[in-house]
């Protein structure tokens, strides 16, 4: 069975400091993994995706994530937070089990950025 766990419901950082948003997953197959960002009153926007190529994935706006199979983790990082990064972030796992389709969204992590 698939599942996604975002380990922190809220993360608060100061502008200019590193960001770490944690995500653990479980999957019976070879999953595709994604991070999405949602700004207030907007839909979700793709930040980056992992689909069994390079384990370190670079996304938009300076974000990156590393797929660690041994730890079943896909944590999102950014070296230096900007005020505009304040938003809700969702970790997503997607499988292609034989004959089926399933996408699971994590519960989300709200990122606060302090001036």
């Amino acid at each position: 069975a698939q599942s996604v766990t975002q380990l922190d419901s809220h993360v608060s950082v100061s502008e200019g400091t590193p960001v770490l948003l944690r995500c653990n997953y479980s999957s019976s197959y070879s999953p595709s993994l994604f991070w999405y960002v949602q700004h207030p009153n907007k839909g979700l926007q793709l930040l980056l995706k992992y689909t069994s190529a390079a384990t370190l994935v670079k996304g938009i706006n300076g974000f990156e994530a590393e797929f660690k199979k041994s730890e079943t983790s896909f944590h999102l990082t950014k070296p230096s937070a900007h005020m505009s990064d304040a938003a809700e972030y969702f970790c997503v796992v997607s499988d292609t089990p034989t004959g089926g389709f399933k996408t699971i969204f994590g519960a989300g992590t709200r990122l606060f950025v302090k001036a």
Partner: protein
Amino acid sequence: GAGVSQSPSNKVTEKGKDVELRCDPISGHTALYWYRQSLGQGLEFLIYFQGNSAPDKSGLPSDRFSAERTGGSVSTLTIQRTQQEDSAVYLCASSLAPSSQPQHFGDGTRLSIL
């Protein structure tokens, strides 16, 4: 436009009324998804279309909810006899193909049931 378009952006209606929410996906995207996002919560998967067929309807919360897609393009999500617990943001997304493709989201329809 080039993105996923949802209408209306906001809908306020009385309990017991029926509502229709519309999603216009990105041209050429065969997969279309509906999600519900309640206040302060993550996304709840409702239904997924591949072309005009819906292989996975497991997320529809009750038989008051239905969805259709015609011509492999526009989809409508219908909620009959609305209840206050139906109040949420309904998000639509589309992708070139299911699962391994990223999904492109619309801005959602904010539904409020009085």
